[in-house]
């Protein structure tokens, strides 16, 4: 599956949920399942400061494929990051840089997303692309 196919899959998965409770429970479960980042890695240079929650992002490029590791002190934020990680992990830096990350708008999540969270996601996507750019140079 390429990036946009993975995005479409996620959109369809999330559309299955009718009410906000289930949708949030799903995001929370994604957050819980995303492996915790090693405490040592939670350093200032890996920190993306959100409004109220903190996000740490670590990226690597192995054999020309991006590999992201992320964590957050907020499990809901972490769940949403998990969506991004799932979509971008294993893709080439070029594909990551060109990816349209607005698929979140097509999930049922948007309407329940506080602007502060939405903002954090935008920052997150930008940061993930930045890491892909660094991997190229």
């Amino acid at each position, binding site marked *: 599956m390429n990036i946009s196919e993975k995005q479409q899959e996620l959109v369809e998965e999330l559309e299955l949920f009718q009410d*906000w409770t289930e949708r*949030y429970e799903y995001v929370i479960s994604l957050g819980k399942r995303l492996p915790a980042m090693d405490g040592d890695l939670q350093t200032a240079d890996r920190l993306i400061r959100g409004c109220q*929650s903190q996000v740490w992002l670590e990226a690597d490029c192995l054999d020309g494929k991006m590999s992201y590791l992320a964590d957050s002190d907020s*499990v809901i934020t972490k769940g949403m990051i998990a969506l991004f990680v799932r979509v971008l992990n294993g893709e080439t830096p070029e594909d990551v840089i060109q990816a349209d990350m607005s698929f979140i708008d097509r999930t049922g999540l948007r309407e*329940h997303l*506080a602007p502060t969270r939405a903002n954090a996601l935008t920052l997150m996507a930008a940061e993930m692309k930045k890491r892909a750019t660094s991997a190229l140079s």
Partner: protein
Amino acid sequence: MSDLDPYALRPDFPILSREIHGKPLVYLDNAATSQKPFAVLNASRDYYESYNSNIHRGVHHLAQCATAGHEKARETIANHLNATRPEEVIFTSGTTDAINIVASSLGRSNRLKEGDEIIISGLEHHSNTVPWQMLCERLGITLRVIPVFDDGTLDLVTYDSMLSERTALVAVSHISNAFGTVNNVSHICSQAEKHGALSLIDGAQSIPHQKIDLKLIGCDFYVFSGHKVYAPTGIGVLFGRYDLLCELPPPRGGGEMIREVTFENTTYNDPPFKFEAGTPNIEGAIALAAALDYVNNLGIDRISAHEHRLIQKAAEIISALDGVTLYGPSDRAGALSFGFSGIHHYDLGTLLDQMGFALRTGHHCCQPLMARFGITGTLRASFAAYNTTEEVEQLGEALEKALRMLR
């Protein structure tokens, strides 16, 4: 004294019948700002529909009506606070503005000199912290901080020992917005006075919840925001002792605050005008007086008692939840702060929002206090006259549901 019936007064507040995400709004963010009753909204509207005009010096009828309304508001507020005279009430745009006015005026006076000390407490809002930090930095003055005990109360024994002839000012909140701690301000002020220090009480959180008697508090300055006591945004009050106001230099220049202007030499007006440069928030002053009238019609003591019941009930329900920590002492007022181990307050707040609850999460503009307790923030429920026991019970249920989802 009959109990306050919140159901009887809820219809006064149009916003309370709103739905959020399809659920009835449960507004428990009153420490951030209160909702407004029709009595206040109508006072604002009536001002613009009947007698809006710029005040002072106006010879025409509307200017006279607006001036009278504005000065009547000053009187209402002075009476509400038990100030000695209306001229002790200065209109500002809020608590923060009022504190900055005092800081700026003191900074230009000859009351402060290098080596002096300003004392604040570890409970303070950034608005009662940063202006003093900035002033201290500019003047080479030291900022000292009254320590906070683990129960969220102030260590007043240490405070007493911190006072000396170097102490120029003590600036402390009456009630902590983060933890609901009620500080012994009359002790704090009388001790300050003994050492020849000025005292400023940040009343942002006490004005909505308690009877304020400035004679009993004994402070030199008392400040609050209208928007936290059922009045609009953009209006606040700086009370200052009259002789101090006469002595202190004006912090800002402009219309109204002058007596006579030439390019060579300008003389200033008397208090309160000396401290009110420019066209004031006339509507806001009038609406603030209407808000205090509203409070007094309900009875501030009845409001206090009602809120006390709510907060006790909330503490009882929430303290029974798994993994909870409640901050602040048990006899808190206005606000109840809490957290759950392993759960981010932001996540809880997000889920509560989905259920129609408005609570504040985070550091509540008290980062040093959060650092003192080793936390990044709390969840805070804060109360007003219109909140009900039912809402408190619903909050308990909503928290249980949200915790189940997050665990």
